[in-house]
């Protein structure tokens, strides 16, 4: 593990009287792929918003290279759970959005957009509109739009949850390849154990609300990986370990939900 890039120090968050996040401590190394896995309603999305600077925590702080993260910044890119491409822009102009915001000159913008579209396999669709693409392709556009600004950390909020199982697995493999090529540090928030085991170097398991780090699992599966790893015994062992940590917490979250309902 190389030097620490992002530190999450005693981060907690309250919504009025409700404690959404407990006390989270976490360190992420440069180039690392970390999955944050937890039961439904445990505060994963709140944590993501805090990590990306979209929300300030009520307790503790997030630091990037030692600097406090208290607002969105170009060094942290976000890929959202919901379909988030701009329908009025072509694929190329969607990908160029962040560069336009940063004031990157047109010529450099075009070159970088062409490069990132090649990376995500959408070079032939540069002039298409999102409405003309499949759900998986649209999510690749969103990933391209984030990666093109070359953020040091990419925070992803269940980016494949709206897709069918097969597309999710294939896109997961694609994401590993893309991240491998760009060398980005990735924080993936997900409720999918399979997704976490397939993609991550390290899996952080959160407990039920208020979320705390329940366990940290180092993923021993060798890289590079693709969806072929899903059928191996080693993969089954990783998912079993994650589920054994998560099962009690998921049951607690489910029981709390049932009582609330």
């Amino acid at each position, binding site marked *: 593990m190389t030097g620490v890039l992002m530190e999450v120090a005693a981060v907690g968050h309250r919504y009025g009287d409700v404690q959404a996040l407990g006390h989270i401590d976490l360190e992420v190394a440069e180039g690392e792929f970390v999955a944050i896995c937890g039961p439904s309603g445990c505060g994963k999305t709140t944590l993501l918003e805090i990590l*990306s600077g*979209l929300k300030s925590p009520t307790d503790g702080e997030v630091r990037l290279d030692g600097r406090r993260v208290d*607002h*969105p*910044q*170009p060094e*942290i*890119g*976000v890929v*959202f759970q*919901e*379909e*988030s491409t*701009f*329908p*009025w*822009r*072509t694929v190329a102009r969607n990908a160029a*959005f*962040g560069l336009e*915001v*940063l004031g990157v000159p047109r010529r450099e913008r075009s070159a970088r957009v062409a490069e990132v579209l090649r990376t995500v396999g959408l070079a032939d669709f540069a002039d*298409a*509109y*999102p*409405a*003309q693409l499949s759900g998986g392709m649209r999510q690749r556009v969103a990933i391209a*739009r984030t990666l093109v*600004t070359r953020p040091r950390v990419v925070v992803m909020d269940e980016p494949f949850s709206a897709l069918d199982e097969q597309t999710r697995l294939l896109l997961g493999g694609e994401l590993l390849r893309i991240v491998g090529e760009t060398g980005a540090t990735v924080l993936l928030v997900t409720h999918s154990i399979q997704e976490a085991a397939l993609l991550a170097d390290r899996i952080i398991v959160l407990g039920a609300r208020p979320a705390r780090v329940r366990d940290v699992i180092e993923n021993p599966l060798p890289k590079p990986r693709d969806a072929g790893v899903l059928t191996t015994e080693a993969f089954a062992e990783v998912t079993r370990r994650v589920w054994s940590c998560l099962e009690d917490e998921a049951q607690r979250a489910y029981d709390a939900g049932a009582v609330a309902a």
Partner: protein
Amino acid sequence: MTSAVLRSRSHRVHGARLLVVAVLAGTYELLARTVLDPLTFVPLSTAVERAARLLGEGSYRADEVLPTIEQAVAAVAAGSVLGGLLGVVLWRWQVVDRALQPWLLLVYAVPIFALYPVFIALLNPGSLPVIAVATVGAVPAVAVNTAIGLGRTRPVLGQVGRSFGLGGAQIVLRVYLPSAWPYVFSGVKLAASYAIVVVIGTQFILSTHGLGHHIAETYNNFDLEAMYGSVTVALALATFVVVALGALERRLHHGAVAR
């Protein structure tokens, strides 16, 4: 469905529309030349011929057509800017939206031409009061449509803007307004139709220039052919504006419509 099939269907629809217009025009022409009172109804072919002659006269173009176009364009521009800003306010502050909605809809239920004398008193005779009345007619269509378009923008798109470090006003300009643009443009289209109607209608009263003034003047002078000629010019102008804006709308939203 292939694009060839879609094109063929679109051609059939356009053909049917033209056929309806041709049948109505032909029926009117026939009736005007046979059973209708010739002192009241001028055949379409005569009206078109007179319109062409009127348009050939420099004084008609300068005194009647040009002021109408200028006033309508000014009203649409002012109505679009004011309506767009009001739309942002309606979207941003629900209380204002709830308070103003009934009044905005009321604009289309009352004869706003009645405001013309008030604006003459405020702005003196000339183009300004005509533009002011037409602007009042144009603002609600743009405002209501802008507010609807902004309200239908998915919040995650704003979050994308925020994640790239954009502030509130920048997010509205770069994300919400482009997202709402199809609705805003529909509002501008409606505003253009209202503005033409209101400008020509207002020119009927007290005005010294414009197509409305010319129609009223020739009617009062029993010059029916010239009156029908001006009515034809007014219809052609309104049709051109609606068709041109429709074509522009299709061109601007090409590819991005199936959201």
